[in-house]
């Protein structure tokens, strides 16, 4: 048998590790700034590109795609080569992957603060960057599959199954959620509208958490945990079962982000039930992580790497219990739109993702730099400061979420909202927001300790790295599998139909061994699992007409309103405001009639939001006079004492781009919004007239003169339109259709009465 000699490329791992740390610090600094802004709104210094709505997407994108993304790449590039006994397929592809990804991050860091956004959470980046992401992802995939093709280890270890699931699913999610029609180099509008857009967005949003922050990190855990603990993995069988159930069930759970919304009830039910079923598959990973440490718990006390891993996996267990809990409708009623969600996400992100990454980096450092870790004490200190930081952060934010959720739902004895004034519920949170700032600072301080430790360790590296050579025979062309153990039933002489023996074999999971040496089959099966699960929900969402009953009075936005909507998107108002009144009395009492699916048919993209730092805006149209909005946008605290909304004084001066309106309308027409040629031809004129009207009213009400060319007028036109279509009188010419959502409202009342 010939033996081949080869070496691993660790230079690329060093690069990815370094940028993980750099972007981690940047992303967390931005996070700290936005957290500060919620406690002290003045901290945006009145600078447009420092305002909350623009920076919060930068924070989320930076920590998810830059920090966690690069950490995954570092871990995958290190472990994959070793698990396959083969260097990466192509050093050029590795380099393209590395530099391409960093360029994407830089592009994001520039465009998001400038207000270039698609207005969908965690998918904000504009279309040119989206295309770049897809291309670089393909480069990564080719590099990984190429390495697999050249492997010298016949079977794929469980880590690699998880890497494959990540590669396939993220590509699918990213491409289909980001489909949009460009209206310029830096602006595009989602292909989907309203209910369908919401569905796609949360199919993406939920599974991005699943397949960028869960599966690849489980893969990393399966490699680094047994390595660091020097112990075999607890259960091979468990890894098979929890891998497949996780991959198949995760996809279904997206709609749990849309309980009580205008999403059809069947989808929300599926989302909830699959989330509950996901509980045990998720815990399979936790068990295999923690039980691998059986017999070496004493080592945890001495080794900071294992400490990080143990806390990380524990947080994984906590958040994957909490997830199913939050997706139960009645719990969601209380938790949704509050900080509870934020706390949940951060226990996952700071605890699971962050700590796993730190543990991995500490473990890698001596190996990557061929020297001892500079200071184990500092690593220990990082662990403790970080843990205290997480605890302070999440305890404060859980308390904030519960407090605000309960206050929103509270009625007094007379049947009126106990806290009718929204800011009352905000003011209660400010002290907790300060505690969060302290917790976040501690966590970041820990990361800086890691940075110091890394820098000092790097300084002690040898002049040139020794690249160790490894030897292994190539894979033989033919392979004789180990015989399967004899069937227990057959040996015992139990007589069964053939299905009986087949079932026994299925549950013994020996068949899986064969899949593990057939990467193509494994990849195809993963693809089948995620695609079929997706289609089960996507097809009915798009095809069943009764999901979105038509409301005859809902009309497309006027040219000026459409422009105002673009400003709303670009300022990221959706980061603080929802546009979705849920059908519960505490909400209809506060905001007005609950939202109907048919109201959003022209909303590209939807703007239902996920967190109410400010009140819902779905029915804000007509609630206040124009002048109120002018004053409020100029300085919210002058109108609402204690408001934490950022001011937008520049909108009173910034010129509206009337010339761009026809293009925006043409894009919307291509997406299916019924604008006629005449509408588009007369758009600028129409917008100018509407702006003059609004500016005139503002002046009569005693406000500033001459706002007719300012951005604020367009924004006000949009805000005043919001949610008013369903109360608009029916045009007299169509007597046939009864007014206002007959299907939804009347029939459900009748159903309720009939019971």
């Amino acid at each position: 048998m010939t033996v081949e000699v080869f070496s691993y490329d660790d230079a690329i791992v060093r690069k990815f590790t370094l940028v993980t740390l750099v972007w981690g610090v940047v992303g967390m600094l931005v996070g700290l700034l936005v957290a500060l802004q919620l406690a002290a709104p003045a901290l945006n210094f009145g600078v447009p590109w420092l305002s909350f709505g623009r920076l919060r997407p930068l924070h989320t994108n930076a920590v998810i795609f830059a920090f966690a993304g690069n950490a995954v790449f570092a871990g995958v590039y290190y472990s994959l080569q070793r698990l396959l006994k083969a260097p990466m397929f192509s050093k050029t592809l590795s380099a393209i992957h590395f530099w391409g990804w960093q360029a994407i991050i830089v592009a994001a860091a520039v465009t998001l603060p400038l207000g270039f956004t698609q207005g969908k959470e965690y998918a904000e980046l504009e279309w040119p960057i989206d295309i770049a992401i897809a291309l670089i992802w393909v480069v990564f995939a080719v590099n990984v599959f190429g390495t697999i093709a050249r492997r010298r280890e016949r079977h794929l270890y469980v880590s690699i199954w998880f890497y494959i699931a990540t590669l396939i699913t993220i590509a699918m999610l990213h491409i289909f959620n980001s489909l949009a029609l460009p209206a310029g180099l830096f602006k595009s509008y989602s292909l989907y509208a309203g209910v369908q857009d919401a569905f796609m967005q949360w199919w993406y949003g939920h599974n991005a958490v699943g397949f960028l922050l869960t599966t690849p990190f489980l893969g990393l855990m399966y490699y680094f945990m047994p390595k660091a603990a020097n112990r075999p993995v607890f259960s091979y069988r468990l890894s098979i079962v929890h891998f497949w159930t996780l991959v198949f069930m995760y996809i279904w759970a997206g709609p749990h982000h849309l309980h009580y919304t205008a999403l059809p009830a069947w989808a929300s039910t599926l989302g909830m039930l699959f989330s509950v079923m996901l509980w045990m598959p998720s815990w399979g990973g936790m068990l295999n992580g923690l039980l691998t440490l059986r017999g070496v718990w004493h080592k945890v006390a001495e080794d900071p790497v294992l400490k990080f891993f143990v806390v990380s996996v524990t947080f994984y267990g906590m958040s994957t219990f909490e997830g199913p809990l939050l997706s139960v409708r009645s719990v969601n009623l209380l938790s949704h739109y509050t900080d509870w969600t934020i706390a949940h996400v951060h226990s996952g992100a700071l605890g699971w993702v962050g700590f796993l990454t730190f543990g991995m980096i500490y473990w890698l450092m001596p190996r990557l730099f061929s020297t001892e870790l500079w200071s184990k004490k500092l690593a220990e200190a990082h662990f403790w400061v970080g843990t205290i930081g997480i605890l302070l952060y999440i305890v404060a934010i859980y308390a904030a979420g519960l407090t605000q959720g309960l206050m929103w739902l509270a009625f007094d004895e007379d049947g009126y909202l106990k806290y009718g004034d929204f800011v009352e519920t905000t003011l209660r949170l400010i002290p907790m927001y300060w505690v969060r700032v302290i917790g976040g600072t501690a966590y970041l301080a820990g990361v800086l300790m890691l940075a110091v430790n890394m820098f000092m360790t790097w300084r002690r590296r040898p002049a040139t790295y020794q690249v160790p050579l490894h030897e292994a025979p190539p894979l033989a062309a033919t392979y004789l599998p180990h015989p399967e153990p004899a069937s227990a039933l057959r040996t015992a002489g139990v007589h069964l139909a053939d299905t009986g023996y087949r079932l026994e074999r299925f549950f013994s999971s020996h068949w899986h061994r064969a899949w593990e040496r057939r990467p193509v089959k494994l990849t195809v099966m993963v693809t089948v699992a995620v695609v079929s699960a997706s289609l089960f929900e996507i097809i009915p969402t798009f095809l069943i007409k009764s999901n979105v009953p038509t409301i005859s009075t809902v009309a497309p936005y006027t040219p000026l309103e459409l422009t105002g909507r673009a400003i709303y998107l670009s300022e990221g108002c959706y980061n603080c405001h929802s546009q979705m009144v849920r059908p519960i009395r505490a909400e209809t009492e506060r905001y007005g009639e609950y939202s109907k699916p048919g109201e959003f048919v022209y909303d590209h993209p939807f703007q239902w939001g996920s967190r109410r730092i400010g009140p819902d805006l779905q029915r804000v149209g007509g609630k206040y006079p124009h002048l109120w909005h002018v004053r409020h946008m100029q300085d919210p605290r002058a109108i609402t004492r204690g408001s934490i909304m950022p001011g937008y004084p520049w909108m009173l001066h910034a010129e509206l781009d009337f010339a761009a309106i026809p293009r925006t309308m043409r894009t919307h027409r291509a997406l299916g919004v019924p604008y006629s040629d005449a509408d588009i031809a007369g758009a600028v004129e129409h917008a100018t007239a509407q702006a003059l009207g609004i500016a005139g009213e503002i002046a009569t009400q005693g406000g500033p003169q001459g706002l007719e060319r300012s951005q604020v007028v367009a924004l006000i036109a949009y805000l005043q339109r919001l949610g008013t279509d369903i109360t608009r009188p029916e045009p007299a010419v169509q007597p046939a259709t009864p007014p206002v959502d007959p299907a939804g409202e009347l029939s459900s009342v009748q159903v309720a009465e009939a019971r």
Partner: protein
Amino acid sequence: MSDVTTSPDPAGSRHDHLLDHAYDGIQEYDNPLPRWWVVLFWVTVAVAPLYILYFHFGPGLLSIERYDAAMIAFYDKQAEELLALGEVKESTLAGLMSDASMMNSGRKIFQSKCSPCHGMFAEGAIGPNLTDDHWLHGPQLMDVYRTVRQGVPEKGMLSWERQLRPAELLAVSSYVGSLLGSSPPNPKAPQGTLAARQPPADATPPAGTAAGGAAAPAAPVS
């Protein structure tokens, strides 16, 4: 084949069966799935069809049905209260001022809906001061009630008829009436004409207001 680096337990301390493969030195046990794990998994799977049967094909109420039921109960209660009040007249509104629960409601509504323009204490801001004896649209309680219901759109005062329920319109109008002469801090300068409020005479109510109060409540605002 590989250089095994993970070390199993000392022999005999466990019954774990080590599988004969290793990847970069990582080995795996062939331990069975924990029993409780399997049981809980199947329980969560079994719950799903039951839930669907109960809520989508059985007696369980989905969110909108539940909401409709709650609203019907609420409107029934409100209709009863309104019928008990009878026709809305100056004296009805004056009478409500001594109803503590109505005044409490009125204050709540005022503070959440009206204060953005009239100030927390009706001292006036974008809109006029409501506590002084100068009035733009009449001093009587019925004038206030009409203004709240119909609004004065050309001046920026909205119509609240569709946003508030009949009982809420009554409560807030009468609450505003009760603020006359309350001299809040930072009052806005008087606007309109000086006019004193006459005590309720109640011969005939101004045209067009009777229906607003006494009729059955309007359909849900939608």
